[in-house]
């Protein structure tokens, strides 16, 4: 039997009574104040607010109407192990995720060496079983060494616990190579996730090709670099009836291409990142390297299309593309800097502040999209119901803070939202029945 795709470090199952919390679980259709009891790491019962008696030996948390959400799931993070532990490791990366309210993440394989063999996957999973605060799944490379030329041993990797496959950071440039991977998926299963970029169009670019790149004299990446590849690969996926997930969509034309593929019944899904949903090329004008990511921040029109896609369901879920880089790597001129922003610790607050508070999206919809990725990857969805493992996030929607003001759990600080005033603070995260994060100023009332 194949190994379970998610692994986590040692956990202590807790007994908690969350008194008078506003439970919001869009899938369970709960949106009301309750007492929630967690016993032995499982959701034991939901009662009227103030209605459940506090058992001795059970930690009491006074919710006072704060929101209890199913914990978030991120299908796209870079934990940098092995080989780039100066940027992040399994401990710091999953600590950052826990601080952002996540109970599960999927790590990308563009490590050094590339995660493309079963022995490496096994050793990574063993490390995760010691160090990971929350559940981690690993996506090995589609092609060996991310070179786009030869398939990795996908069947063996799946047996060893691969969630799926991706060459993230790079496109599968060759249509023929991608087709073989999709055919091989019939044998081994596993979602194939694609970073879409045509290198002949993006070469020499450091930011979105548009008004700002022209003004700054910085090489531009045209949106067609992404959208033509999304359209091409959707067609290949449809032809092979394969299961494909498009990563970090960034522009109007890509959203349209995915919508068309879905309308044809192709088995495709997709994600958008908080930075693409909230920022545009205008934020790059100051050449702050934290604003440099791939795909690049595009126009307001592109941003609106992503928001609309998230609302309509064309975009299935939110993914942070958490991409830590060391300070010295980012403290260089814009064109020299590596691409990527961290995102796990700010995702919920940034989206709540930027989209829910102004009335653009409903809170319930945001919660749904921040938890939807697990099902896309054939993993159990976190839900707040008796008998379910406790995967919970307690947030204070009114608490305001400046992102990064108290440092980061991540080893890196290259967050595009750093310094912004945000609302919606994660107070407590429970993953797999264990408390994995507690906001430092958050006091426990009774024990």
């Amino acid at each position: 039997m194949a190994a379970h795709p998610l692994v986590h470090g040692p956990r202590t199952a807790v007994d908690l009574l969350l008194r008078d919390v506003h439970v919001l679980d869009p899938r369970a259709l709960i949106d009301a104040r309750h007492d929630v009891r967690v016993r032995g790491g499982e959701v034991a019962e939901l009662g009227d607010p103030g209605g459940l008696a506090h058992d001795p030996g059970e930690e009491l948390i006074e919710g006072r109407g704060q929101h209890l959400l199913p914990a978030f799931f991120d299908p796209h993070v870079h934990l940098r192990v092995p080989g780039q532990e100066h940027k992040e490791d399994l401990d710091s990366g999953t600590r950052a995720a826990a601080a952002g309210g996540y109970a599960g993440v999927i790590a990308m394989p563009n490590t050094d060496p590339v995660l493309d063999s079963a022995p490496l996957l096994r050793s990574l999973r063993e490390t995760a079983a010691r160090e990971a605060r929350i559940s981690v799944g690993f996506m090995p490379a589609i092609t060996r060494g991310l070179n786009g030329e030869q398939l990795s041993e996908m069947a063996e990797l799946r047996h060893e616990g691969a969630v799926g496959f991706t060459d993230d950071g790079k496109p599968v440039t060759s249509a023929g190579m991608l087709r073989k991977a999709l055919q091989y998926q019939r044998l081994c299963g596993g979602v194939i996730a694609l970073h879409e970029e045509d290198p002949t169009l993006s070469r020499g670019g450091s930011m979105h090709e548009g008004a700002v790149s022209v003004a700054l004299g910085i090489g531009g990446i045209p949106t067609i670099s992404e959208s033509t590849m999304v359209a091409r690969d959707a067609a290949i996926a449809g032809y092979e009836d394969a299961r494909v997930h498009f990563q970090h969509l960034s522009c109007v034309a890509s959203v349209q291409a995915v919508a068309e593929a879905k309308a044809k019944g192709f088995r495709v899904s997709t994600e958008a990142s908080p930075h693409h949903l909230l920022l545009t090329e205008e934020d790059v004008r100051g050449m702050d390297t934290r604003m440099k990511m791939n795909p690049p921040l595009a126009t307001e029109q592109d941003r609106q299309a992503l928001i609309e896609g998230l609302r309509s369901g064309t975009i299935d879920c939110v993914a942070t593309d958490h991409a830590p880089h060391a300070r010295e790597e980012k403290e260089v001129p814009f064109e020299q800097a590596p691409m990527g922003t961290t995102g796990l610790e700010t995702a919920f607050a940034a989206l709540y502040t930027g989209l829910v508070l102004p009335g653009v999206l409903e809170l319930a919809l945001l919660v749904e999209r921040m938890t939807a990725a697990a099902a896309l990857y054939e993993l159990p969805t976190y839900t707040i119901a008796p008998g379910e493992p406790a995967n919970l996030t307690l947030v204070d929607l009114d608490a305001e803070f400046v992102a990064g003001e108290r440092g980061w759990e991540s080893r890196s600080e290259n967050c595009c939202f750093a310094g912004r005033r945000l609302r919606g603070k994660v107070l407590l995260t429970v993953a797999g029945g264990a408390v994995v994060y507690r906001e430092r100023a958050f006091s426990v009332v009774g024990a």
Partner: protein
Amino acid sequence: MNHLLSIKDLDRPSIERIVAQAERFAEVSDREIKKVPALRGRMVLNLFYEASTRTRSSFELAAKRLSADVVNFAASGSSVEKGESLKDTVLTLSAHKPDAIVLRTPWAGASELVSKWCSAAIVNAGDGKREHPTQALLDVYTLKGRLGELDGASIWIVGDVMHSRVARSNIIAFQRMGAKVTVAGPPTLIPRGIEALGCDVRFTLDELSSADVVYALRMQNERMNETWVPSVREYASWYQINGRRLSPRQVLMHPGPVNRGVELSGEVVDSPQAVITAQVEAGVVVRMAVLYELLAGARASTPAPSALPSPASPEPQPA
């Protein structure tokens, strides 16, 4: 003025002030002893990450004519080749307490970064494909000498606009001085959306006769190998400024170095319409004026506004 990072930081009165100061310094250049003591005891550091002959020597001469001490630091043959970062190089050289750093790099925005790392006045002497503000100033100076005022003048910038920091700075500076700017070149070398800078775009030289000034850009050989244009021959046949295309009343400019037979024919380079050597001459006096403005003027001790974009995002806290 604390730094000269971008021509965008200079409004028309500031440009005119620098040009007027340069005109006063021009008189010095004609003396037998070409030196004034204005910046005696000050130190100017030339920090060049790219090969440059005319810009560097022009800044060096400018500083020396103002009696400043000059140190040249070229990236090749230095600690940079041993892997030292821009930041560490700047911090190291700052220990010598330069009053001004003249910076040339292949990276957009490098001078903004450096201005945050040290207290010297920073002069952007070219940052990647972005800007070359002193070139724009010396071109305005040269044109004023030739045309009087630039108001209403039609200036055509011809060639590889995409890879040209000179084009970007000059489009802005010429327009601030009242001129009308048109860029012309092969469609592969005109950045999409350049109209947003206020200029017109043409892909042929059919209407070149309407120009008062023709500003040709250098066509770099490496662009030919990257298939931006099919061949030098085809480029020259469509975009070369030659005796057939240039009319006698037009002024011809070029930032140098010239590729004779590519963007300019030999006969126009040597014609009286060409002000190419006047531009070089202007380089010294304009850079004297810039250094003088930065170092001898009342230099405020307040730091320049942060290059970071949004008002809502101050520096991150260290983790």
